[in-house]
């Protein structure tokens, strides 16, 4: 059959790499304004760390929307829950936290992360069955129901853990900074960045190298066809939702240690940042989410240094700018 040999050989698929340069461009633009190299390094490191944390929180949100058109305004509850779980792990093991031994500290962090994954994953399952299932396919009701769910969850957290802010100090060997020349990079930020990178690499490998990952990527594009190929997309989605909740929990742990405090209201505030990130990145795209998070965090840190009161406004402007350039985000997925 001569079908396609109709002239053109298929051009090399163009990798859409332009958005990857965006964070570099932003960094390059900000550098001269910041002036001192040491400040620049510190701010950039801070931005990268923050971006990694927000990425962890937002990745589940974007996958859930990409796959099943489910917009969960209650996602912040998973973040807060993760943070509270961290306090439950750190308090009895305070001696591990106070020991100035990084293997022990790392073990403690790993334990807290594991606990957050389990608790938030389970809570995600409950949330999906109770709150989301009745309102599949109805956006307005989803928004309302999940907001209601988030209010109830936040109040439940206050009822269980008390309404006050709980302090949470990072383990001893993670405090302080690495000093490189003039620049100081907080040790904890490095740890958070590493954890975030592990999550990103793990997520990317899982999506690209496993059969389930293949199903998820296909489901984000066309869930009906995946079902028609013989797969229970609804069960797949529950798994994705739970994973998203678990990831949010990880983000919550990291953020709580970063800010050194835990309070149920943090989920709601971080959720707004997550929305900005997934709008920028494109709904359904993990890669877009990653770049979006780094971009937003860099802008937040640079603007925070240059014009502190305008930091959040700067992020809104970033979001608007990206939407003007690509109305569906950097890497929109599927036909939506």
């Amino acid at each position, binding site marked *: *059959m*001569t*079908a*396609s*040999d*109709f002239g053109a050989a*298929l*051009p090399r*698929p163009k990798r859409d790499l332009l958005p990857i340069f965006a964070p570099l461009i932003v960094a390059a633009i900000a550098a001269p304004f910041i002036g001192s190299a040491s400040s620049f390094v510190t701010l950039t490191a801070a931005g990268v760390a923050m971006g990694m944390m927000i990425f962890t929180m937002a990745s589940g949100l974007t996958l859930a929307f990409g796959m099943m058109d489910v917009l969960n305004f209650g996602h912040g509850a998973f973040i807060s829950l993760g943070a509270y779980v961290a306090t439950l792990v750190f308090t009895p093991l305070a001696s591990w936290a106070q020991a100035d031994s990084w293997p022990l500290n790392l073990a403690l962090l790993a334990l807290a992360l594991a606990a957050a994954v389990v608790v938030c994953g389970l809570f995600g399952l409950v949330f999906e069955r109770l709150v989301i299932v009745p309102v599949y396919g109805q956006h307005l009701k989803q928004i309302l129901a999940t907001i209601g769910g988030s209010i109830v969850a936040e109040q439940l957290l206050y009822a269980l853990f008390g309404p006050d802010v709980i302090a949470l100090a990072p383990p001893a060997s993670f405090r302080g900074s690495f000093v490189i020349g003039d620049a100081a990079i907080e040790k904890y930020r490095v740890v958070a960045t590493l954890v975030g990178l592990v999550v990103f690499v793990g997520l990317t490998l899982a999506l690209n190298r496993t*059969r389930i990952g*293949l*199903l998820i*990527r*296909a489901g984000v*594009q*066309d869930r*009906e*066809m*995946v*079902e*028609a*190929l*013989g*797969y*229970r*997309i609804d069960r797949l989605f529950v798994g994705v939702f739970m994973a998203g909740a678990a990831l949010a929990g990880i983000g919550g742990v990291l953020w709580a240690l970063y800010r050194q405090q835990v309070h149920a209201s943090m989920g709601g505030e971080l959720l707004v940042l997550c929305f900005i990130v997934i709008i920028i990145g494109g709904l359904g795209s993990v890669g877009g989410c990653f770049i979006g998070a780094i971009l937003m965090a860099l802008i937040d840190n640079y603007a925070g240094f240059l014009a502190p009161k305008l930091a959040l406004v700067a992020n809104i402007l970033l979001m608007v700018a990206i939407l003007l350039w690509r109305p569906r985000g950097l890497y929109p*997925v599927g036909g939506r």
Partner: protein
Amino acid sequence: MTARLALDGVHTHIGRYHILQGVDFDAPAGATTMLLGRNGAGKTTCLRTIMGLWRPSRGRIALGDSAISGLRASAIARAGVAYVPETMAVFADLTVRENLLLAAREGPLDEARLQWIFGFFPTLKRFWLSRAGSLSGGQKQMVSIARAIVEPRRLLLIDEPTKGLAPAIVGGLIDCLKEIKRIGATLVVVEQNFRVAREVGDWVRVMDNGRIVHAGPMAEFAEDAALQARLLGLSLDGRQ
């Protein structure tokens, strides 16, 4: 392996539209049945209902001995039904290889089967690792059909495979369908292109207004120009 498809009094409502209004349809096992009709007659809805993507409001659908009406689409697929939609529904961000991998539920891709597919779709071999979204319309159609045959199935539902394709490619697709027939699958094909229908189909069923208005062997139907004109609203021998 192959099986007879039988629809009995099937109704489908979409919203408040009553699309299928009592479809009695059968596709004999191992043969190719063409589903023809004017635009809007309900042919796509019929296929989608069989596939379980729309739920029938009334009636029974049986594949061989088992009833498949009311099952989820994934269950129907696992009963051995493959679907090639009108929109092709190729996963654009996945490679050709990944598209086929998804369709191969039993495990890794069968090498012999793949070679057979490459036999009539050599292009797929060339673009094996390319993003499916960057392929042309005809190439995407190949991917879509390849997905349906990458493993043996009892029933193939194909919706307008030649729609929008250049004549040269249509010829190739006819060869492909004949090749699939040769290995003995049951096919139900919706087709607007009568030349294709005539060459490939053993049986013909014509739909109008959500019902089957004619059923019989293709050979007879192809001879009866008056009948064709009446049911399909076109005079055929001038075309294609």
